[in-house]
């Protein structure tokens, strides 16, 4: 459509005022210092690990399961100590963030109450929503998970921004890059956008900034997440609708959206739910509409971009992520042939875009 406004975002040259507006920061100095510390330890541990990884397989590991590879690497005391360090600092991060919101709970709850019914944008909470069991786990060791902590949205956003991403996206830069890489439908019309599994809404916000005239929605199964996402978007002056709904049952009419995005949703849902979500996207995206998916690589990715690491360290890392980062659905997600699922659901699939994070491009799927 001729009226579509499309603004290229420029994450590399945010002004000081832009940064101040987007910056997240606790109202208590010590908590900010704890995050600064956690970020530093994570950076240090990551650098050490990178240096320690041999680039080629150290033995024939075909026959080893990922659990056996893990057990083998854990016999090395240095590796065991490194692992302990990584999980202890990860738990330190979540723990201090959760405590911070708990300590000033009244303040943060009042802040959300002040924006619940206020614009711009809107908030739809659904305390009666039947939350599927698979979405009630403490994924990535986040205490209470997304749904079980009153501050789940804040906790996720603050911990990741201030510590876990190690300075990669202090003002949402990563999500701006993701939003920039979303291709427009061939006819150019972008009237309605949906971000599924929006969590704290950082990508949803970036999509709205790129397409300010488009009606923009973020849905998430977690009440605390959409509530925080709305609070933050309202503070940033972004007119976005956040709703507590399931990605597999979005309640939108057929062929409603021109663009749908998801970032890091699919490795956190069961394979059964993943299939249902794909079917729902095929229903609500219009012919010619674009679905931009970004998550870990799965079976069925072209081998030039995705070569599964079958070294003993690679397999051990897979177990470590699944078992100890507490990602119950990760392995089943990787085993899905995601591109084939999309094709079978009626999408043409393209993975030739630029790598955004950890070497992976988005999967751009156009509805036939």
């Amino acid at each position, binding site marked *: 459509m001729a009226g579509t406004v499309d603004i290229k975002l420029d994450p590399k040259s945010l002004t000081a005022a832009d940064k101040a507006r987007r*910056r997240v*920061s606790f*109202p*208590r*100095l*010590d908590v*900010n*210092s*704890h995050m*600064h*510390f*956690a970020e*530093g*330890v994570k*950076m*240090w541990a990551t650098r*050490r690990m990178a240096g320690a990884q041999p680039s080629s397989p150290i033995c024939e590991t075909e026959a080893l399961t990922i659990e056996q590879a893990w057990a083998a690497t*854990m016999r090395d*005391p*240095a590796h*065991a*100590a*490194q*692992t*302990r*360090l990584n*999980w*202890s*600092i990860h*738990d*330190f991060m979540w723990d*201090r963030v959760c405590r911070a919101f708990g300590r000033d*709970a*009244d303040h943060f*709850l*009042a802040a959300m*109450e002040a924006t619940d019914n206020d614009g711009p944008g809107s908030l739809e*909470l659904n*305390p009666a929503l039947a*939350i599927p*069991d698979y979405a*009630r*786990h*403490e994924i990535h*060791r986040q205490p*209470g*998970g997304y*749904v*079980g*902590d*009153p501050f*789940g949205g804040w906790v996720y956003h603050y911990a990741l921004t201030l510590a876990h991403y190690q300075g990669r996206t202090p003002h949402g830069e990563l999500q701006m890059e993701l939003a920039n890489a979303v291709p427009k439908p061939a006819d150019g019309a972008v009237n309605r956008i949906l971000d599924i599994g929006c969590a704290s809404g950082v990508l949803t916000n970036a999509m709205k900034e790129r397409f300010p005239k488009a009606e923009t929605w973020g849905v998430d199964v*977690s*009440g*605390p997440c959409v*509530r925080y996402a709305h609070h933050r978007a309202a503070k940033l002056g972004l007119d976005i609708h956040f709703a*507590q709904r399931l990605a597999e049952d979005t309640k939108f009419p057929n062929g409603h959206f021109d663009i749908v995005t998801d970032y890091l949703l699919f490795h956190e849902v069961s394979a059964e739910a993943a299939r249902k979500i794909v079917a729902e996207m095929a229903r609500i995206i219009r012919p010619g509409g674009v679905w931009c998916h970004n998550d870990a690589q799965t079976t069925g990715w072209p081998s030039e971009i995705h070569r599964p690491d079958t070294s003993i360290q690679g397999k051990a890392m897979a177990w470590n992520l699944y078992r*100890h*980062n*507490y990602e119950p659905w990760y392995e089943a997600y990787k085993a899905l042939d995601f591109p084939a699922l999309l094709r079978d659901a009626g999408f043409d699939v393209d993975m030739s875009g630029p790598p955004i994070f950890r070497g992976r491009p988005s999967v751009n799927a156009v509805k036939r």
Partner: protein
Amino acid sequence: MTSTINGHPTYAADYFEGDWNKSVFLDNPHIDNLMTALLGLGGEYWAMRRRLMVVEKLLATKCGIDPSEIETYHPSEDEQKSWDRERDDFIRRVFSALVREVADVSGPIDIEGAKLRPPRNLEDMS
């Protein structure tokens, strides 16, 4: 009905508690716990140092100090960079011990096997 805190609705729901905080990676769970506590101590100490840096900075530049100014202090970009360097140095100092390379040192000193190394550089000393 949604859960509440001090009368405020929270919209949080039931969740499954994971066993992720039960894992033991070292030979004795107490060693795991020591490492976690030591990291916690590091965090406390770092928070103290940052607070002192703030206080010193403010003391140097002002007279009457409003505590809320301390609570909401944000470093400048250059200052943040130097804080990052301080932090990294501190982390290496305290925690390198935890990831020390070990070897079997039983038996006499292996004079023939000793490795010749170039003079220590600044990185070796950090």
